[in-house]
């Protein structure tokens, strides 16, 4: 109790105007910012992998397995911040046992389980099955056993079986794209369906979430590819990078248009909440929304990649621009999540005042734990890469 008082009392000084007395405590903090950010990366990485498969984009083939494993690594971590933020994490299983069918949040468990079990794991399994069987023959000791278990003791690598694998992957991909849309569109719906909150309540929310997810996913794969390839002392495939960057560019154009539409629509409709929202945007959200999300995360990378496309720049410069742009996009998308989640709670539902959020450093909802949750997917990814190497050489041998 004293801790709560100690944390909340100083916030009184930060309030401008009038807020309802219960509103001083901000309810969804940094952990809930992480959740849409992480699931967005999952959906984005998976959609990228699906594009490679469905449209058979040869240039991006080297990123296919990397994308799948990245999606898995981030998906495994995504529910952890959610769980950590619950007041009673030990009761979280109730969402599965007695879900309220009218609640958007209750569907989370089912969408998540469907995506993990029916889409991602299945696709990875079919894609790796042949290699797993080969590695079972090659490895010794615990690794042999591990591969045998992961391959679910299958041993058929006849042409017929391999053709079936390919067919299965295609089917799963076709089911997977709408599933990935569902996974992240649904996260947008959780916010977009709250009519009490004019900052969130928008029918565009799921679609904006989706496209920002695709943007962040492509940027992440670009970054991972550009870091991992030199680490393995290999040469980067510039054609693959060019293709990734142009996909990133087009996804950003769509994302930007949608966000601009949302913005213009709000200003044009100019509802009851417009005064307090413009106060919010020009004040407490100015740096994170206008400077970081719009300028750093969107406009500068857009112009940079457009410049690469227009002028034939040398390869090294292109790589540098791609890398820096992808990094800026990543920061921008994190900021987007921040602006939605935190921004939506900084104004009073009386539309008469603004409150404040002060992040703590320690504690479950603090900065340190959040950084941990951001690093964790990469550790999972490192583990996945080491047992399921996504490189072409591993496939050949």
């Amino acid at each position: 109790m004293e801790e709560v008082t100690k944390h909340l009392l100083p916030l009184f000084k930060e309030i401008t105007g009038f807020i309802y007395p219960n509103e001083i405590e901000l309810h969804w903090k940094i952990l809930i910012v992480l959740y849409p950010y992480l699931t967005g990366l999952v959906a984005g990485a998976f959609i990228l992998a699906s594009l490679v498969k469905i449209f058979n984009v040869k240039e991006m083939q080297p990123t296919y397995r990397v994308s799948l494993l990245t999606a898995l690594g981030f998906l495994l971590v995504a529910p952890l911040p959610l769980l950590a933020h619950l007041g009673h994490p030990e009761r979280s299983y109730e969402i599965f046992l007695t879900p309220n069918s009218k609640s958007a949040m209750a569907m989370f468990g089912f969408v998540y389980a469907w995506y993990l079990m029916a889409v991602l794991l299945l696709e990875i399994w079919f894609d790796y099955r042949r290699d797993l069987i080969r590695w079972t023959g090659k490895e010794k000791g615990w690794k042999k056993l591990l591969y045998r278990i992961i391959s679910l003791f299958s041993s058929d690598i006849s042409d017929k079986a391999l053709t079936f694998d390919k067919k299965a992957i295609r089917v799963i991909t076709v089911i997977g794209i709408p599933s990935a849309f569902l996974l992240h569109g649904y996260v947008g719906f959780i916010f977009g369906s709250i009519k009490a909150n004019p900052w969130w309540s928008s029918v565009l929310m799921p679609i904006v979430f989706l496209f920002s997810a695709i943007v962040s996913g492509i940027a992440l794969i670009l970054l991972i590819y550009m870091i991992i390839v030199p680490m393995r002392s290999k040469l980067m495939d510039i054609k693959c990078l060019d293709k990734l960057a142009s996909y990133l560019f087009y996804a950003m154009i769509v994302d930007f248009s949608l966000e601009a539409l949302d913005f213009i629509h709000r200003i044009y409709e100019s509802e009851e909440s417009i005064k307090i929202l413009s106060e919010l945007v020009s004040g407490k959200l100015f740096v994170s929304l206008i400077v970081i999300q719009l300028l750093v995360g969107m406009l500068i990378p857009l112009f940079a990649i457009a410049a690469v496309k227009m002028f034939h720049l040398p390869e090294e410069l292109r790589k540098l621009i791609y890398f820096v742009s992808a990094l800026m996009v990543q920061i921008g998308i994190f900021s987007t999540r921040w602006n939605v989640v935190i921004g939506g709670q900084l104004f009073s539902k009386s539309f008469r005042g603004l409150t404040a959020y002060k992040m703590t450093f320690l504690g479950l909802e603090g900065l340190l734990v959040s950084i941990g949750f951001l690093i964790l997917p990469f550790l999972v990814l490192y583990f996945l890469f080491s047992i399921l190497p996504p490189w072409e050489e591993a496939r050949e041998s």
Partner: protein
Amino acid sequence: MNNDLQQENYDRRKFCQSLLGSIAFLLLPIQSRAAEKKNPNRVLVLGNGYIPSDHYWGMGIDISKCIGCGRCVDACKMENKVPREPFFFRTWVERYRIYEDDETQVDSPEGAINGFTTVPFGNHVIRSFFVPKLCNQCDNPPCVQVCPVGATFITEDGVILVDSDYCIGCRYCVQACPYGARFINPFTSTAEKCTFCYHRVAKGMAPACVEVCPTQARIFGEIRKKASPLVRFIRMNNIGVLKPNLNTEPKVYYADLDGEVR
């Protein structure tokens, strides 16, 4: 050979049996719920003989009678063991001051638990009044809709309650409430809100805030019984509800509600 075949048949039968058995087990919760639905005449009676379905509760608030003394806020905190700290309120009182130049000032220092202090008049005030706030016990409650586990629910007598043994503390209901009526109890880490003092109402008593109000600005009663003082209050006054555009259908009715009140 024949023996082998028999064995195989037997295994298959056993497999099918256990498969069906486990599926049936999974469907058990649905079965029990279906059984509940088959008995629509089941009448819930509380331990003390109170029958919820015989009532439908609401509250009227006569804004012109409220003097902003804050005794309701204090009584509510005492009755319901709400933490005394100024961040947790099941009910609070707001003061509105509307100036000549159309500027509106609203305040509620510590939820008005100690009333209000007078402010020096600078600008000319044209209207001023107090507005007690509490959970609106909506008939179309967004908080109940969003609760992922169904821990918050609407009773047969129209009150929204929270089962604190069931709430997982996800705070979605707090976000969904347009009136800021919910908070998280720091001791239980679960959602909390006004219950119309359900424990008192079920014993035939009025909610604590209604009982202590010195000017009878709060009127508690039945909505669906003609002889109720609340029905009379609703008939005799110009009634407004908070944020009607959100279609939450509140059951807290304000007489002479000013357009500035949100």
